[in-house]
């Protein structure tokens, strides 16, 4: 499950969103039943309930702050691509641990 390069890229995109829209935090989660499993992000949460947007079937973007509704789809293309890669590589493919620690 650990995909450091993808985590880093997701975190970088979250940082870009935070800087562009003045968000206090943006983060990407995997939807696992009721659990919203944190994958990567930037910033610190506030006490506002976060907004969220699906990026793919199992991945969603959460953020604290305001992203104008009309810009939400447009500003997340890169994240959507990364989310799809995460689904392909981390959720259905083999991780670096697949065959045990010594497989790295």
């Amino acid at each position, binding site marked *: 499950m650990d995909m450091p390069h993808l985590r880093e890229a997701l975190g970088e995109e979250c940082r870009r969103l935070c800087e562009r829209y003045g968000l206090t935090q943006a983060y990407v989660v995997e939807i*696992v*039943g*009721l*659990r*919203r*499993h944190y994958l990567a992000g930037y910033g610190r*949460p506030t006490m506002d*309930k976060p907004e969220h947007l699906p990026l793919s079937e199992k991945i969603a973007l959460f953020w604290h702050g305001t992203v104008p509704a009309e810009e939400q789809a447009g500003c997340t293309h890169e994240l959507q691509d990364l989310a799809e890669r995460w689904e392909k590589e981390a959720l259905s493919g083999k991780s670096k641990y697949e065959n045990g620690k010594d497989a790295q």
Partner: protein
Amino acid sequence: METTAKTFTATNTELTPEAVAWRDSRLERIRQWQSKNGYAPFIDETGIQTTLEENRRPPREAVLDIVEKARANASTGEMLTAAEVACLTAVEDEAAWEAIYDAANWIKQTVYGNRIVLFAPLYVSSPCVNNCLYCGFRSKNRAVVKRTLGPEELDEELRCLVDAGHKRLIMVYGESPENDYRYICGTLEAAYKLRKGPGEIRRANVNAAPLFVEEYRDVRAMGIGTYQVFQETYHKPTYRRVHPNGTLKGEFDWRVFGLHRAQEAGIDDVAIGVLFGLYDWRFELLGLLHHAMALEKEFGVGPHTISYPRLEPAEGTPFTTESPWLVSDADFKKIVAIIRLMCPYTGSILTARERPDLRRDVMRAGGVSQMDAGSRIAVGGYAQMNREHQPDRQQFLLGDTRSLDEFILDLCREGYLPSFCTAGYREGRTGANFMPLAKHATVKNFCIANGVLTFQEYLDDYASEAVRKIGQEKVIPQYLAWLDTHNPGLGDRVRGNLQQMFKEAARDLHF
């Protein structure tokens, strides 16, 4: 899930051929894993003993300095060093202990606020191929009947829990072909599916045997909260003595790296624990510390919670009363307080194994953050047992048999906020996103706000008249005022949610 209830995979004290084959095959795979394990060992027995020896007589000033450091760590999430923890275990001065207890309570208040998160244990399946000397569920114990819940029985148990007001479970499993990871997945699915009026299970944690990475992945996919694997003892000679060779649990490294594999599988909320009474509690505390440090070092995420069950009497299990390392009440209180000081960010779980009077004392002096109540630890016990023990179906005997409502009434009288909060893991505050909140002591704002909302749900849907009265008149106003003081504006937002609950019967509003 199988459609019918099963009985144990053994007759009398002998495992069935199927169970033996499953155990032996699994043991072979476990030993293969251990032969390739690349993780660095983190339990150095000689090193721990030396650390304890070198810090056997700490000067009072040094102890008080450690206590002050622990207070400061509440805002940084730093842990104490092994030498510092060893010093605390050696304190004899009563005044210094009072300083430690004060600090433990202060740290808990600073990180989590004055709330107690409530949960219920649900014993789902007790058959076990292991033969641990201290456990009532061990394979050779004829005095305890082993059971695996079928779908209807599980549903009945879940309904009892939901009817009492529970929202958070720790689901407990033995280790056998009857309750392997596939059975665990099926029962988790059933727990999450249940809806009964306003009742539902919002967080299911798991206490089960350590798994292979691919098995963890399937369990993870059910959306679990925390995965608990208690090492029981970090002292290898003791471990080997109480977990016979040839059993799955007999493999120390398999278990001690069990949560490393869970992290590999993407389960980033993991929980550690010790069964105090198997070996010297001072040694075990350092074992817990090194385990927490190893998880942080390898994955950047320490334990979500630490548990500290004490060896309790169990039917047909004389070891539970004969161990030379049984922990006194006084030492138990010290253990809980030291855990709070050594690892300030972690949740601290005090269970109903302990008596009510001790729980009242330790929850404050030890900085406890989570407790169970209304617990039944017989498989099928919630449905079949009202207030009576069922010692022939239990892993051990309970000390606190108060109902959830009675327990909550006591919490209210003591000034605590009873909480059924499960918001964090449903809003992505997991693993590396949760840790900074706990380490920088800001998580309490979420804890109190969500605690108020979930306690109001309990008052509206499940509480007795006595709890409703004290909750509505004292507890809710007290914690709304706390929010007004500590996070201006937040109290009004919570009041808005409470209005929505009142006017629209809305539920599960959370931050």
